[in-house]
């Protein structure tokens, strides 16, 4: 989850546990929040990206997640990890956004995908196109289905944690994943098998 250390990151907070960073923030040590951002920014950005399927919006949403988290740091009780708490805020921010804004689909060449060394250029292009297409399909799913699918498949959260984050039952989480997969099957067509 943690990214590479920024040169500007104050060294005294680098090895401090998340809960202690929160305490430091609440005591007025704003530099501690920079470390929190550095540790969790990638996971939160990718969560947002999976929801909206577009870099600019994902970047704005991720920033909003951290801003909201900072404003409500006093509400963090330490009952779950800081990462899970940030996820919850992230899911809420994303759900609010996707309910008012249709996703904008990325162009095929907007970003390079992760490349495998044993792939030919043609295979890489094909895989990139498939990935873009799949992200576009996912971004068209109804909000709850998308949330359940993204958190389960891409964020590897347990059904129980997803249920807590979305405020629904475990059974409803599985049902949402099921319907998300069925809808994706329809969108993809017969080429999946």
């Amino acid at each position, binding site marked *: 989850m943690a990214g590479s250390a920024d040169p500007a990151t104050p060294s005294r907070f680098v090895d401090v546990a998340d809960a202690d960073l929160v305490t430091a923030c609440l005591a007025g040590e704003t530099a501690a929040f*920079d470390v929190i951002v550095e540790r969790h920014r990638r996971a939160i950005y990718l969560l947002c990206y999976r929801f909206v399927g577009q870099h600019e919006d994902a970047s704005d949403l991720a920033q909003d997640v951290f801003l909201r988290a900072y404003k409500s740091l006093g509400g963090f009780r330490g009952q779950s990890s800081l990462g899970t708490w940030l996820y919850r805020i992230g899911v809420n921010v994303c759900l609010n956004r996707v309910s008012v804004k249709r996703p904008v689909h990325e162009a095929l060449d907007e970003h390079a995908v992760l490349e495998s060394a044993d792939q030919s250029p043609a295979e890489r292009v094909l895989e990139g196109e498939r990935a873009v297409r799949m992200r576009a399909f996912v971004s068209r799913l109804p909000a709850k289905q998308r949330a359940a699918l993204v958190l389960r498949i891409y964020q590897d959260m347990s059904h129980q944690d997803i249920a807590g984050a979305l405020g629904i039952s475990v059974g409803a989480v599985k049902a949402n994943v099921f319907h998300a997969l069925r809808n994706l099957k329809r969108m993809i067509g017969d080429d999946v098998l």
Partner: protein
Amino acid sequence: MTFFDGGHLGPEALIDLVEGCSSPAPLAHLERCESCRRALAELRAVYERVSEAPAPEPSPLFWEHFSARVHDAVADVEPAASRPWRSWRVMVPVAAVAGLLMAVIFGRGGAPAPTPAPVQSASERGAAQVTVDSNQPDAARVADDEISLRLMEALVAGLDHEALESAGLGAADGVLDGALVDLSSEEQVELVRLLRDALAGTGA
């Protein structure tokens, strides 16, 4: 959990099977049901295809800019816990208490004493403006105040402490005390002054 839906495996059972964790009953059903095997195979294929779709990785430069943006965005913001007296969980009960106090004060004292209108000089408002006599209350404003106070009374009269608590709007024990303690010395002096003025106006 209900495994079956209309004689076949339901969504929950199928998702458990897709993810490789299932109890014996659905597995036994799967052995003898071609339709469920086909449904499971389709779900697995989509699941795998979705799982394999990578997300683009932003550049290291993006992360530096992102951290700087967040840093700037929070620079003028205080974390909520450092000023609990401003949170809605505190302000709603405080507002309710203030409203109750005003309702009691003005309910006993009748209409409020007229507030002197501000004096504005001709130089401030232009030569054609008329200077307002501070001893003559503005009748329209007093009427507005009365309407506002009646509205406040009506709203306060409808407040039910238990209903507020059950709605999550109540203040936990000590919260109001904490809110008062968190007021700055100037804010505490101002609060005392306002309360004294209000009580003096009712003869209490």
